[in-house]
């Protein structure tokens, strides 16, 4: 049984569906994670200590447990919790795709939080003073002066984190969601074509991630010139 390219070609439509799901999950988790991560970062830097501690606790918790475990929590344990709350007869299933979205947004928020925190802290104190001196309030100063600069400074790191996220989404395989790797895996099992499928998937991941990293590096250089 030699290497059969035809297997890959035949399964392309199915793989494409899985790939679309992977991209969709990555994009949703990146946007959601960035949004909640930014709020978390603001909370961590808040002068109101309980809020800062709560945010820090959340971030440290998320960063100290494996991602697979968080996936399991939501997939297997959350229904039990919901059952306890609602008093339903059977644990209401959350479903693989919803579990994946919720988990990745919550998990990535912790990592994006730390990036945005560094970004906010990289802005000189004088900028904050200037914004306040003009009469801007906290939210106006954040939204118009601090966050746009913090975000711009952090674009390369944020993109690098998103590339890692793109690879990490393949973990949804453990809750049987059909992402790119999941799709390839299903065909590999069905047709006993493990070599073709797992090699093809690896090549696609490698080419994409390598290309993206290379683009980020170029972007980094361009931003460095502007400053």
């Amino acid at each position: 049984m030699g290497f059969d390219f035809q297997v890959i070609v035949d399964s392309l439509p199915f793989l494409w569906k899985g790939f679309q799901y992977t991209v969709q999950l990555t994009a949703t988790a990146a946007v959601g994670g960035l949004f909640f991560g930014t709020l978390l970062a603001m909370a961590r830097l808040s002068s109101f200590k309980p809020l800062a501690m709560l945010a820090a606790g959340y971030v440290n918790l998320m960063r100290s447990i494996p991602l697979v475990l968080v996936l399991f929590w939501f997939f297997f344990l959350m229904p039990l919790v919901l059952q306890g709350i609602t008093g339903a007869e059977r644990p209401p299933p959350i479903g693989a795709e919803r579990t994946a979205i919720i988990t990745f947004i919550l998990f990535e928020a912790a990592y994006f939080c730390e990036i945005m925190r560094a970004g906010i802290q990289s802005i000189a104190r004088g900028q904050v003073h200037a914004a306040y001196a003009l009469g801007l309030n906290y939210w106006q100063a954040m939204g118009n002066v601090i966050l746009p600069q913090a975000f711009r400074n952090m674009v390369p790191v944020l993109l690098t984190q998103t590339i890692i996220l793109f690879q990490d989404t393949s973990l949804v395989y453990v809750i049987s969601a059909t992402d790119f790797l999941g799709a390839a895996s299903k065909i590999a099992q069905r047709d006993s074509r493990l070599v073709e499928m797992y090699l093809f998937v690896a090549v696609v991941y490698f080419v994409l991630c390598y290309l993206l990293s290379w683009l980020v590096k170029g972007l980094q250089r361009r931003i460095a010139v502007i400053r």
Partner: protein
Amino acid sequence: MAMIEIRDVSKWYGAFQVLKDCTTKVEKGEVVVVCGPSGSGKSTLIKTVNGLEAFQKGEILVNGIPVHDPRTNLSKLRAGVGMVFQHFELFPHLTVRQNLALAQVKVLKRAKDEADARGVRYLERVGLAAHADKFPGQLSGGQQQRVAIARALSMDPICMLFDEPTSALDPEMINEVLDVMVELAKEGMTMMVVTHEMGFARKVAHRVIFMDHGQIVEDAAKDDFFGTPRSDRAQQFLAKILHH
């Protein structure tokens, strides 16, 4: 009623006292220069006036409004008090035009066109209308500081605070900024200016305050300050900076 009234203001960083019972006032239309060696607390003092620095004791009134009162709407008070910083602090991600319009639109709720027109008018005043669409990073230090002054003026402030406005500038750019400030002083703007530029003080100041170790050591009319009767510390300081 004085425009700025500072009464017995003290401030501590932990156990270290940076301001010690500072009391002074700036009348409407008055130009007051604050000088003193570095670390004397003069920058801290001027930043307490619009509440950028908190203080633990004493009170400050700006146009009768208490800065130290937690019920005071600080943003509203600050919007009426222009401030110019040592390092300009223009917003680098916005063009000069956007820098001038931002707070007018967000804080004073002016229409975009109106804010823009007003901003350009002040840019013309400081001689920089041609640079409206550049980013701050494309301007020289002196130009940036003039934009910063225009930005503060476009909010129609009732008084202006200057925190070492020329200290970060190359020598050949200092005068272009001082010229704008002198003009402003002559128009009757109320100004509190932390600076080492004694030429500026001589030309337009009404009073000069000398600070050392967090204390106001001397608070005198300009002619008295530059005349003979004054404290030893102020004399030594003047001798050092007037030499060159």
